[in-house]
């Protein structure tokens, strides 16, 4: 099972270029898609989920053309959109059951078992008869996950799945995903960098519709290892530093800005070398002045 995206472009009617010649090879396993809001992550995922057209380019899932054979793709697809609502006046069990019918699980007994198992897995079993209107954000999200897992997807696309989940729920969800085994393509978008590091065997960073970077998370970090420096500065000095150094991120620690910069050589001036993280790599791609092109 392999998903190949090549030269995918999409421009919206209002002129926004959502995707610009995106090419990715995604093998089975977890694939992380990292990027800021508006980067084109959701556009890409919707296109993969057969819900949006591309202006150019192709997507194939093994030998299946995703853009033209949508319903074939949908049979093996699990999709959790970033934003969704639920019918307020029916229970979780009923809606999940209904969605199972839509997914083609038409045998009543099978359906009952699957729905039950998924409700357990997503910790919604106790709340299964409640009307969805009363669901909290986290419960709603878990319901979304449950429906995405109906019908044993071969291609699972989850858009910001952990938004609204508390840490325990988040862990639970990741366990679920990792359980899915090796013959499923799982694409996960997030802006929580750590998620990717923990879970994904492959990743890509996209911004403004373009793929900035793709590769194995560890390899990606490896490339900037030894080039990241950190310093706590005064607020008033901030602008000076920004002009003189390749600042990739600034954080506040006890009210004082702490800068991360990227530099081939030790810049001195109080900067201390630190261990590079994926986050540094991410910020360097998004905000940093690129040093020299890095390819994974």
């Amino acid at each position, binding site marked *: 099972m392999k998903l190949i995206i090549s030269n995918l472009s999409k421009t919206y009617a209002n002129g926004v270029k959502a995707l610009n010649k995106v090419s990715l090879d995604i093998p089975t396993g977890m694939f992380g898609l990292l990027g800021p809001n508006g980067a084109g992550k959701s556009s890409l995922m919707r296109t993969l989920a057969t819900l949006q057209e591309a202006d150019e380019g192709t997507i194939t899932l093994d030998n299946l053309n995703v853009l033209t054979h*949508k319903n074939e793709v949908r049979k093996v697809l699990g999709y959790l959109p970033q934003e969704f609502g639920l019918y307020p006046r029916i229970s979780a069990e009923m809606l999940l059951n209904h969605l199972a019918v839509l997914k083609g699980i038409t045998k009543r007994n099978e359906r009952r078992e699957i729905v039950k198992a*998924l409700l357990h897995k997503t910790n919604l079993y106790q709340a299964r008869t409640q009307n969805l209107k009363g669901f909290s954000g986290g419960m709603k999200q878990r319901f979304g996950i449950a429906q995405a897992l109906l019908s044993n997807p071969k291609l699972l696309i989850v858009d910001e799945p952990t938004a609204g989940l508390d840490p325990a729920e988040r862990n639970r969800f990741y366990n679920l995903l990792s359980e899915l085994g090796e013959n499923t393509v799982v694409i996960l978008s997030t802006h929580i960098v750590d998620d990717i590091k923990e879970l994904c065997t492959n990743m890509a960073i996209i911004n403004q519709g373009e793929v900035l970077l793709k590769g194995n998370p560890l390899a990606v970090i490896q490339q900037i290892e030894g080039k990241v420096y950190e310093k706590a500065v005064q607020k008033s000095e901030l602008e000076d530093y920004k002009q003189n150094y390749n600042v990739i991120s600034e954080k506040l620690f006890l009210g004082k800005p702490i800068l991360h910069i990227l530099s081939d050589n030790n810049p001195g001036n109080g900067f201390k070398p630190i261990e590079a993280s994926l986050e540094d790599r991410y910020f360097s791609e998004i905000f940093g002045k690129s040093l020299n092109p890095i390819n994974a």
Partner: protein
Amino acid sequence: MWYNIFKFEIKYRIKRPDTYIFFVFLFLFAFIGVDFIFQGMDFEIIKRNAPITIAKSMAAITGISLAIASMIMGVPILRDFEYNIEALMFVNPIRKRDYLLGRFLGSYAVLLFAFSGMLLGFTVGEFMPWHNPNHLLPFSFLRYLEPFVLIALPIVFFGATVFFVSGFLSRKLIVVYTQAIFIFVLFVLTKSIENEFLQAILDPFSLTTLTDMTEGWSVAERNFQFIPFNGVLLYNKLFWIAIGIVVSMIGYSKFNFNVVGDKTSKKRQQKLSNKSDSLANFKSKVPVFTRQQNFKTQSIQLAQHTMFYFKSILKETSFWTIVLCGIVIIIINSISLGTVYDVDSYPKTYFIVKELQEMSGFFFVIILVFYSGELIWKERTTKLNLIYDATPITSFINLSGKFIGLILIYFVLMLTLVAAGVLFQTANGYYNYELQVYFNGFILELLPILVLYTFMAFFFQVLLNQKFIGVIAILFFLIGNVILGFMGVEHDLLSFGGSTLTFYSDMNGYGHFLRPYLWVKAYWFLFCVIIYIATVVFSVRGTETSLKKRWKLSKYNFTKRLQSASMLILILFLLTGSYVYYNTNILNTYWTNAEEQEYQLGYEQTLKKFEHLPQPKIRAVNLNIELYPNTRAYTSEGYYILKNTSNVIIKEVHVQKLIESNVTLDYVTFEGGAAEDRQYDKYDYFIYKLKKALQPGDTIKMRFKQSFTTKGFEVSDSNPNIVENGSFFTNKNFPTLGYNRKYELSDKDKRAAYKLPIRSSKASLKDTFALQNARSGSDSEGIQLEMIIGTTLDQTAIAPGKLINQWKKEDRNYFHYKTSQPIVDFYAIVSARYELKEDIWFPQSDTIKQAVALQIYYHKGHDYNLNRMMQAMKKSLNYFSANFSPYQYQHFRIMEFPRYAAFAQSFPGTVPFSEAIGFVLDIDDEKDVDMAFYITAHELAHQWFGMQIEAANVQGQHFILETLAQYAAIMVLKQNYPEDKVKQFLALQKETYLEGQLREALQEPALALVENQDYVYYAKGVINMYVLQELIGEAKVNLALKRFLNDWNSFKGPKKVKTRNYATSGDLLRYFKEVTPDSLQHVIKDLFETVTLYKNRTTAASYEKVASSQYNVYLEIETSKYRIDDQGNEISVPINDWIDIGIYGKDVDGNKNLIYLQKHYINKKQTLLEIEVDQQPTNASIDPHNLLMDRDFENNSAYFVEHD
């Protein structure tokens, strides 16, 4: 601050397309507004742009369009909740007053803008070239502005406040959608209020108000008087504006400027019990399922999907609100059950079904229009669409589930309606529920059209991809279809959905109308399935919504399976269409209106020259008729004996075949031979040049054979006379001689368009040719009739004459009828499966004691009123034979026929009587007039007025035939029923007269000159005859009629024989004048020769108590009399009449009771009367029974004040 919110609202609305759609909608609606509201109205007298016409149209259109007010006013606050920005809004430091006021005024400004479209539409509409300039007054903008401001705007204000408040208090969009219906319900409710004044005040659309206040206005007033803003109208407007203000105040105080604090948040807290699962459960494996994609799984998917949506609508309170609303309307709306002259019929299922259909139609449309939108948008509204769309369910199954779910919802409503109907029947003590009639009425008649429109609604929703625009589109489609129908697109293959099914008859079921109906529905169903496939192919899946993108995608969605299915359906569609076309247009002739007019025009232009050509008269008819009800066919073979009664030699006989394509004239031969001239074939008009010319006084035999064959089927309006059970046709179907005036184009405007001369519906009294004819195309002076009719074994065939033989042959029933004396040339043949009720009447005082067989042939089960009808026959025969002349036949038969027509018609000794007008009437002797009795008496009277004496086919003909029959019938009613029943009947006739008079396009004619105005010759006629007999005495009137009948008898009357003319109204009046004393001679002129009206008024009434049972009453009355001349001018005439003065008191039970009724001689405008009565009077009235032609009866009476 409020101003900013106001500005924001306006700015927001300016960008919204619906603002303009509403404007355009109202503009277009108003554009055709007057014609829409006053459909079929002739604007000859009251002009199309008279203030009252405009005011009523505006009121009605405003009422109908209140839904728009709801959609504009209901949403401004709701919108904040919908988009969940209420929290953002309400934390701002806005004051409640500013927020509400700003939003209200902003929306109201937009609403006024939308409704200004109506004003503009009306104004522009006047200038459209298709209006007849004779129907218009000179243009004046003020005539539009005034009712717009006075009538329409207050309604709009009321609607705006109520909708605004209920919108924000309920926070439900469905309330916004449906609340206009409630106002409409309210409007319907007010219709049932008895008190006219109250009704006028409470009518939210002021329609009744306008009618009420213009009652008694003259033509000139109606045309030129602006609507005065006073009286009931003023109260009406104040009342509704006040309601609007009160509602806003309540709404203002109830509006809570908090986001939360409603019930749901408490619920939510309770429900957040969030116990964790055990880890074991979490570890459980999700079972693997086996995917199958076959027909079975898809069927299961469809079934599940359907039930899902079906249940989702069932859960909607809005749905149940609509259902409830429908039931309420049905309960409050007194169900009209085939009401004839104010008498209801038994609650037979077909009446109930018809009523239920009519009253629920609106609700079905609402459900169809709104829930089709809701269902298509259901996922997108809740934002579940991305999850949905990514599932492998096909769009076809997805849409079909919604579609069928909605259809099931219709079933729920239908079941509810059936339950309501059955309850109603039970409550009325009627237990013959006839569930199959319910089934037919809903499943066969209503469901197909709902299904078809639902297809279209889905199509529009998907294609336009905006819920609201989709709703508007389907509404336009609905209205557009109606308009297309008016514009002449009528063929069932072109007019969407085809026509409705002709109503159900107990006798004949749906008859032969069902087959074409089903074929046409199949045709449209297939059409809709093609549309539906397009709907599926173009349905939105995912985030691509632009039509261009969807067009690109369609090639993937239009799968091989769908392609082959569409091909198949397309072929079936074309085949069905061709089959229908073959039947309606090739096997049968289909005429568009235009073609029909051209033909009529051609007929008149080509053949009019023969109109006065002397032709022989039919003297004897001898026919063998074979009826085949099952195949809807007959043959009629035999001969006419023709006699030259003129004083010139007749060389050619002109035969006119009935112009109907399934009637053929197989041969026509003449004794001695004739050469056929077929140059007028096109008009089925054949000229036979006799080998031997017919000398005056000579006779000749004309043999012919005519066949009626049914080939395939015709469009909906096919012949309802030859049917499976209950055929009824007259001799007008057989060949006639000479030019037939009835084929001429009769519509006045169309004649003008073709530059044809003005055609009066009756010839003038001076037309010497017409005086010698008793009916249009008359070709007889009395005939001998002999007829053998064969029909199926289970049916009885009936024709005039004595039944001289009856036998069975080859599984058929034969009946041989023969008349024993001449009859008028007017006979009917009926055949049906009949039950028979018989009786015998013996003449009481006749010298020849010949018994008369009374027979009623009726449909099984229709035996409710047979005794009443039998009674009527006997009593009428008694009265008529004693007072007018002996009854001429030895039998009198009534035969029931299907309710395709609602009349009874007299033929010699026989009366076909529709199942709709007497057989199933539920007559309550307490409150109803016995109309079964009355109608029977009326028809029997025609055995004298019509069968013994015919009237010349000129103006006033119906005065003789119908008015006299009415007189005779009311005399029998008077003799056999209490006085108050007679008065009740007369009061109803007075109402009928006033209504007819209001609809009159031309000037109301005097009775003696009446043409086809039934409100004159039936309604006014019976009242005036009643007044005549009150003034000169019943015996005198009867004496005059006896003489008249004797002198002008069609066959042997000395005056008829001498002049060879038929009787005219002038002749009749001479007999009346003969028996009228000199002092009352002018009454004849008032009642019959002119249109004479009264304006009577009681200006003051008082009394004083003289002794314990002696009261002196003083009345000041004003009486004036005037006549309407040909031009419609009122001409005052001196009063010189005996007029009823009535004084009411209370009887022992406290009921109003006439304690004094006397005729007083009045000969001046103001009169002071002093009357002594023996009990305390309550009020007094001039002409208390409303028998004088006074258009404003209200002011005739006055309540008393007691003198000190």
